[in-house]
């Protein structure tokens, strides 16, 4: 167990490598109840989110989800978010646990003047994720009133799981097919137990934060505090597409983000494969021909690829020509190969 943003979280249940591989090959079960849930509801909820976030949320259809960000006036990322439109006038904003208070405060302030209420509903929801190629097959018999095949990627529906009401969304943070189940806290244990016993035969195992981190890294997904933070804009992270300049109305950060979009990012997020058994960890320097050219943001052994991988911010031109990249790992220069992100893409 580990302390994480005020929650006690399992780093691993047994072996994080085995948990990671189970998610790639069969399925894993995650308790993500630490994630923040912020409800934005009212006739102008969509307009309030359009102003508060960089995405075009009023255009989101009910039952669909979108990956987006909330930025400061200067374009810096306050958090990355998944937003579900539960109904015409009802949105659920999912924030990182460490940022829930900041996101809630910013949404409340930015919704002022709109006919929309903002509520921190984190305590009203538990969140269980089932991820992996076997996820749909394990969930389906426990969610008989839902047609899982009709829930497309980044969509969701209300239904019953093991007889308990839940918002069942086809979203996740692993690079695999899977579902995230938002339920009442008192229903979390029965739902968890039903999935765990229903999935054991198919290879489902409980998976902790350590596996979640290596899964998202292989999938090239950014983590707030590593790849994202107030000192980077979505453009540095290679996620400029989430900024919707053509949406109606004003939004917080537009001016700074437009300037950044036209000038090009000062650094860019890149993937590295490390040519050693050693791990290039957060904060380690990246060198081009021995000269500092960037910083590692996340690094781990890739259980799927069998080599250490990393994401790093690199200066423009760091990889120009035949420059040889390396990472400074506690005094040793270890060769690194620039690698397209994501490191892993599932077969469709």
């Amino acid at each position, binding site marked *: 167990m580990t302390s994480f943003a005020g929650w006690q979280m399992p*780093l*691993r249940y047994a*072996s*994080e*490598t085995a948990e990671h591989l189970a998610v790639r090959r069969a399925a894993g079960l995650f308790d993500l109840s630490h994630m923040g849930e912020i409800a934005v509801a009212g006739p102008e909820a969509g307009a309030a989110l359009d102003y508060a976030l960089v995405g075009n949320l009023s255009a989101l259809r009910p039952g669909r989800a979108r990956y987006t960000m909330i930025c400061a006036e200067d374009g810096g990322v306050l958090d990355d978010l998944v937003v579900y439109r539960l109904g015409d006038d009802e949105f659920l904003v999912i924030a990182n646990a460490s940022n829930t208070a900041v996101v809630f405060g910013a949404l409340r302030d930015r919704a002022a003047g709109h006919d929309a209420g903002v509520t921190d509903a984190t305590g009203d929801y538990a969140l269980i994720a089932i991820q992996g190629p076997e996820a749909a097959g394990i969930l389906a018999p426990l969610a008989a009133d839902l047609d899982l095949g009709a829930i497309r990627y980044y969509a969701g529906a209300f239904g019953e799981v093991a007889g308990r009401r839940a918002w069942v969304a086809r979203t996740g943070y692993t690079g695999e097919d899977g579902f995230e189940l938002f339920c009442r806290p008192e229903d979390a244990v029965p739902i968890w137990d039903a999935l765990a016993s229903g999935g054991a035969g198919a290879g489902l195992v409980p998976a902790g934060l*350590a596996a979640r981190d*290596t899964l998202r890294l292989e999938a090239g997904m950014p983590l707030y505090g590593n790849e994202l933070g107030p000192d980077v804009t979505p453009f540095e992270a290679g996620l400029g597409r989430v900024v919707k300049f053509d949406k109606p109305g004003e939004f917080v950060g537009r001016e700074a983000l437009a300037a950044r979009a036209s000038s090009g990012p000062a650094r860019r997020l890149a993937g590295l494969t490390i040519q050693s*058994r*050693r*791990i290039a*960890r957060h904060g380690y320097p990246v060198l081009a021909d021995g000269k500092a050219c960037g910083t590692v943001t996340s690094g*781990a*052994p890739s259980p799927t690829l069998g080599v*250490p991988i990393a994401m790093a911010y690199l200066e423009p031109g760091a990889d120009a020509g035949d420059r040889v990249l390396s990472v400074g790992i*506690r005094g040793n220069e270890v060769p690194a190969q620039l690698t397209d992100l994501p490191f892993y893409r599932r077969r469709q």
Partner: protein
Amino acid sequence: MSVPADLRYTPEHEWVSVEGTTASVGITEYAAQQLGDVVYISLPDTGAAVTAGEPCGEVESVKSVSDLYSPVDGEVVEVNNELEDDPSLVNAEPYTAGWMFRVRVAQDGNGDAALPPDLLSAAEYEELTKSAG
């Protein structure tokens, strides 16, 4: 969690097994569980002099990297090369196949291995891991 009674321990979670004047060294099951899956181990070279309480290598797991401390003074006479190919032996069998290095230590007046006086017994080490929670 296992803490074999016939071994000696350090507060840094190494174990020591002594035969004659040769001390075998590894990390405890408690340490291996705390680290999680071990992915890389840097061991001292054969012939290197090691000093009790001083770092002599590194143990790298998925989530962290930690110094490996020598529990004894002496000269490294053998290292476990199996760990290069399979560092997970440290998790699977920390007290047997996961041993890390062997040190020839000096003899005391009785011809026994001269060990640092502050090595812990199994009971003392177990107490230490319990109070660490």
